[in-house]
């Protein structure tokens, strides 16, 4: 049987980050993470393998998210405005890294199908094949969503990235 404490310590940070990028605020992300580990504590005797636990945790959190989120707001997706000139993140942060708030904001503006894929890719380091398996999507669809999500993020974040790499290198 899995060890609860070991599993919690191994996954809670990434799971919280996944929740945060799905729902976009700390309070809801904490609630989702707590709900997920509460369910793990109750059901840990049914999960025998470590690798099963990882996908179980993400699946449980995501199911809770879609149920809460879709019941309340019916997914009012925000259009990603690539010509949005009201915010220039490159000027907002003087450090030579990507500003976390800016990055979070950009991820939040992605449509949910792109947001889920990109979050699993960056935070949990899932491969595109693992993401396809988890989301029950064709591999080509996952690649296409990663490409579209990255293109949008890149356009928004490029000024700050260039600053970072010119100075650092």
């Amino acid at each position, binding site marked *: 049987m899995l060890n609860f404490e070991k599993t919690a310590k191994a996954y809670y940070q990434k799971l919280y980050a996944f929740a945060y990028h799905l729902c976009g605020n700390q309070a809801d992300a904490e609630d989702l993470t*707590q709900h997920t580990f509460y369910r793990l504590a109750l059901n840990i005797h049914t999960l025998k393998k470590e690798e099963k636990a990882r996908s179980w945790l993400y699946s449980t959190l995501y199911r809770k998210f879609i149920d809460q989120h879709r019941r309340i707001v019916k997914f009012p997706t925000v259009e990603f405005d690539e010509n949005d000139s009201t915010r220039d993140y490159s000027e907002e942060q003087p450090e030579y890294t*990507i500003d976390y708030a800016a990055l979070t904001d950009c991820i939040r503006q992605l449509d949910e199908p792109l947001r889920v894929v990109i979050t699993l890719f960056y935070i949990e380091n899932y491969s595109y094949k693992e993401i396809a398996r988890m989301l029950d999507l064709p591999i080509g669809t996952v690649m296409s969503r990663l490409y579209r999500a990255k293109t949008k993020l890149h356009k928004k974040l490029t000024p700050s990235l260039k600053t970072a790499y010119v100075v650092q290198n």
Partner: protein
Amino acid sequence: MNIKETLSAFHPENHEDDPLMNLAIEEAEKDPELLRWFTEQLEMDNAIRETLHAQKPPEELLGKLLQYQDAAEEKRKLISPFFRSTLQWGAIAACLLITTVFAFKDTIINNQILGYHASLSSIEKHDDFRIAMAEFVDTTIISLDFLSEGHNEIRQWLKEANQLSFATLPDGLEALDTLGCKSFKWQDQSISLICFHSNEGNGRIVHLFIKEVQPTEDAEFLDTQYASLQTLYGRQTKGWVTNGKHYILVGSDPDVDLTDILV
């Protein structure tokens, strides 16, 4: 597929045994413009990963989570007397079953129990389907194709998408709100999935999977098998067969009670 789409999925830890990715990298190495784009992508990936991983959850979160272990243990203790007696009866039943199997093993091995052989393929197919759908719920982040709380809208959407739909449902299911539906393929067969909010609430879901009965399957026999409650992957499963379709119910977690849903 666009080569940039393939390269977008590049992962530094997971590409070595991936011919598709290695081919795309070879192509990039021959094309300076593509290589420059790919290098920029990798820089962006690293920067985004570093930024995202630098963010830590609230300090008190781990402490709160670890308390759930104790709470769950308390809950288990409350029900353990029941399980203890269940386990005792289970052990007795297992002994009886083993004794019976030994007593009749020749008959069983020779498939001489009436109807056993004829029904074997049906049992296997039925079990495959039920087990596969329980595993699907256990391991998949389900992304729905269509969202609606109305049964009629779900029916309409499935019909227009040329997918398996449902005519009438048992009263227990008719009473539940739907969340949405999706369609997918399993072993080259079309499957429709309809998600219902369970009576237990708190985000719990009842999944209804629909598949056509194949010509090689015995629908009448399957119906008697589906009606039995089985726990698979820690979830209750139950179902029925009607008008040439299999219906399988799978709860989203162990607390979803399907016992009375088909009554």
